[in-house]
């Protein structure tokens, strides 16, 4: 009974973390773009005249979206039209269950791992769920029964499938180095030291894999340098026929993908919840120093480190989104098939050679 309760609490915590961060990210995106462009950004939303630098903006957006008319075109396929945003949302939201937020927490005699599900094929599970997210796009394009939406959906599908290849291949080198598909053990392996001082993070062992994964993951989020499926302003995208909360679900999916990609980058290449030189009982510095810490503080450090890394990558992705113009369609395909896929293959071969010698 208590086991079920613990799992339930973990699910709720992970979802709340994800959705809160998503809400905040809509605000962060506006503010960060404004700061980059020497503006101030959304700061007017207020409750009773109190406006904490516009932090109420996401709630204002949510209220607006709830009260908007949920318009379903007469010519659309109604059931699929309704189903598509939910599919798209679900497959992204479910990936959070495999992400390790921290090492295990000891409460009395019980050990609780700070991860909803420690699946032994966690990596494959995440890749599979990210691939299934394509269904949301293609179904929404198809069910809108609008030629522009359909073409947008097709563009999206082509892009996501192409980059799925590079995404998967770039992680093979990582699996060779950390011989496990279980995310918690991948993170555990990254706690070891290289040459006695450098943490054994993926970025140091797999720099090429990191670059390929980063670009492919950026393409997976469908945001600006790769926003061909969506194409807000010029080329019409797959959610043209959506309004109100259903459109909001698509938008939230975008932001959630940013967070998921950040968590994946953190988990695979930046040591997940590992703090450099922090062992289970405190810091063991390579120059000989030691700083013993109680268990709760260590766990707090780990969760904080994970969050900071994730926030940094969210920041980086928003920076990229507000810096670069959109790729042309053939450029996207060239980058995917002619550069990233060969590079990931080179990475696999190189990793293999280096591991044998």
């Amino acid at each position, binding site marked *: 009974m208590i086991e079920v309760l613990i799992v339930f609490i973990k699910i709720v915590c992970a979802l709340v973390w994800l959705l809160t961060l998503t809400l905040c990210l809509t605000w962060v995106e506006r503010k*960060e773009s404004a700061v980059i462009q020497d*503006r101030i950004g959304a700061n007017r939303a207020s409750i009773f005249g109190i406006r904490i630098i516009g932090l109420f903006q996401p709630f204002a957006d949510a209220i607006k979206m709830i009260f908007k008319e949920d318009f379903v075109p007469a010519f659309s396929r109604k059931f699929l039209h309704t189903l598509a945003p939910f599919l798209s949302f679900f497959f992204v939201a479910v990936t959070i269950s495999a992400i390790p937020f921290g090492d295990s927490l000891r409460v009395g005699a019980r050990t609780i791992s700070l991860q909803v599900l420690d699946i032994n094929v966690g990596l494959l599970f995440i890749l599979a769920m990210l691939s299934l997210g394509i269904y949301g796009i293609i179904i929404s394009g198809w069910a809108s029964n609008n030629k522009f939406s359909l073409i947008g959906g097709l563009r999206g599908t082509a892009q996501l499938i192409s980059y799925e290849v590079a995404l998967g291949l770039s992680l093979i080198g990582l699996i060779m180095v950390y011989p496990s598909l279980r995310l918690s053990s991948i993170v555990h392996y990254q706690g070891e030291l290289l040459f006695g001082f450098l943490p054994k993070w993926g970025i140091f062992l797999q720099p090429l894999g990191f670059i390929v994964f980063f670009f492919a993951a950026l393409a997976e989020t469908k945001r600006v340098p790769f926003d061909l499926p969506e194409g807000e302003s010029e080329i019409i995208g797959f959610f043209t026929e959506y309004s109100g909360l259903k459109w909001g679900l698509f938008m939230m999916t975008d932001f959630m993908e940013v967070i998921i990609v950040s968590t994946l980058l953190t988990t695979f290449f930046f040591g997940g919840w590992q703090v450099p030189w922090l062992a289970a009982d405190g810091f063991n510095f390579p120059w000989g120093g030691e700083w013993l810490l109680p268990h709760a503080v260590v766990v707090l450090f780990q969760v904080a480190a994970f969050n900071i890394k994730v926030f940094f990558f969210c920041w980086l992705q928003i*920076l990229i989104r507000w*810096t670069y113009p959109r790729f042309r369609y053939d450029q996207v395909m060239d980058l995917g098939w002619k550069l990233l896929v060969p590079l990931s293959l080179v990475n696999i071969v190189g990793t293999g050679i280096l591991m044998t010698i």
Partner: protein
Amino acid sequence: MIKALGYFIEIIRGSVITARHFVVNMFFHILKVLGIKTKRKGAVTIQYPEQKKELASRHRSLHRLTTRDDGKPRCVACMLCATVCPSECIYVEAAEDPDPEIQKYPAKFIIDLSRCCFCGFCVEACPEDAIRMDTGYIELSKYSLQELTYDLDKLIG
């Protein structure tokens, strides 16, 4: 390959520029939050309704009619402004003034601001310096067309 590498370096430089803007602006924003006054601001934005920009001395804002010493309008109803007005938004109705020096005065002087394009031709055409556009009042959005029809009382007052 080398060409592609060059592009790649330029791409990185692009993001360094935006990152630099972010860091520098955030630095000044944080200084402002901490209450430290700096000459440079984190953003170039003017927070309009609370914070207003000083209008240029030649800025053409809402019209006003100048008056003589006794409080009557200087306008002699010569119709030059109404003639020159490209959007035909000025309506003047003349009446006879008992003073032979003045001869005519405007019984009605109506400017329909919903049509006015603020070109300032009326000011230039006026031989008596009776109409000016120097009130500095620029918030001319109203809920009805009637509120935008300015007559003699409103233009003098």
